[in-house]
């Protein structure tokens, strides 16, 4: 019997790569089981577990995915796993958060990035001080 080349990857790192007899994945429209020579399929995944019958390990492997995409070709299965919980509302909340931070960063005077400016001012003051000292010295000499 032929086998499937399975790859499970996330944006942060590769999770699994190897040969398998079959794969079961939690697609959005219901769980799908994939055997070799499956018709090309591409679908969203919902949070759940991906089960892989690994040839090399000789056992069933379990991987948890918090969503993602599944791509199936006759002898290849690719799971693009999300590392983060996704959803329109959640993404929206994250976007709001980033926006809020921008506003805060631009209005807040006490925030820590003002440190850079304070340092620049300090350097300027120090330079002026050196200049004054130099002038005094030459004035005296």
């Amino acid at each position, binding site marked *: 019997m032929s086998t499937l080349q399975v*790859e499970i*990857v*996330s*944006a*942060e*790192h*590769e999770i699994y790569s190897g040969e398998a007899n079959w794969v079961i994945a939690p*697609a*959005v*429209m219901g769980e799908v089981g994939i055997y070799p020579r499956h*018709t*090309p*399929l*591409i*679908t*969203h995944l919902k949070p759940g577990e991906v089960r892989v019958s690994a040839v090399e390990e000789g056992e069933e492997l379990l991987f948890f995915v918090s969503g993602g*995409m599944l*791509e199936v070709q006759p002898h290849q299965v*690719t799971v*693009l796993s*999300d*590392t*983060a919980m*996704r959803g329109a509302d959640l*993404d*929206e*909340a*994250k*976007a*709001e*958060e*980033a*926006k809020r*931070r*921008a506003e805060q*960063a*631009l209005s807040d005077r006490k925030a*820590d*990035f*003002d*440190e*850079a*400016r304070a340092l620049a001012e300090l350097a300027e003051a120090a330079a002026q001080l050196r200049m004054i000292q130099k002038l005094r010295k030459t004035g005296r000499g």
Partner: protein
Amino acid sequence: MSGEKEIRTKIASIRNTQKITKAMEMVAASKMRRAQDRMAATRPYATKIREVIGHLAHANVEYRHPFLESREEVRGVGFIVVSTDRGLCGGLNVNLFKNVLRAMHEWRQQQVPVRLCLFGAKGTAFFKRIGGIEVVAQTSHLGDAPRLEEVIGQVKIMLDDYVEGRIDRVYLAENEFVNTMTQRPNIATLLPTPPAELETLEHYWDYLYEPGAREVLDGLLMRYIESLVYRGVMENIACEMAARMVAMKSASDNAGDLIDELQLIYNKARQASITQEISEIVGGAAAV
């Protein structure tokens, strides 16, 4: 000649500084290696997703996604600028900002408004100081191993602006890691995604789509852009560590030179005072 004790304390203080810069150099070196590994780990995902999008772009011709379509008229431009949180990394940030300013200037001359999306405290401080540019999103203090989650919000703002037509180009500005000694500021086009960059299809077939081609393509492209930005953030961290390592190495070397110089002055001062003492004793003895 200045006092011996003064020179001695000066040498001691420089030696302490040198210890610190040496330690920072070593920390940066080990962090750089880890950052490089993490950067490499993002590659399989990006490659895979690009392959799939390449297949889709060919298989599904009737639906043209806005991310793949180049718009002639440019009404606004978005820049995603990745900078570091901390300094002491040479000219890494400044070089990048210079390039960004130049690119922004070109657009502004054509009366095209520019929107910024910033990663890192240095970028925030810099663009705040300059002023007059709309900053729509900001994230800082991501640490050495940022998670994809922290990139999503930022990218979504830019993508939404793009879809709704407020901006027609999105650029990603970050430092490219060439090698330990060289980091090159790089401004790449994120949107529209040039189709030439996508893998070409060797065989023709169409997928079954669940729930539909549109949703699938939407989800894929969003993840693709996110993974590109995430990779940029990771690459910039590797650059930061490499730049810091080099900066700290030269600082340690300079401290060493300074210590050598001061040591010489110290020895001379010491010798001079001894000689003086002897001549005084000899002079005194002769007088008696």
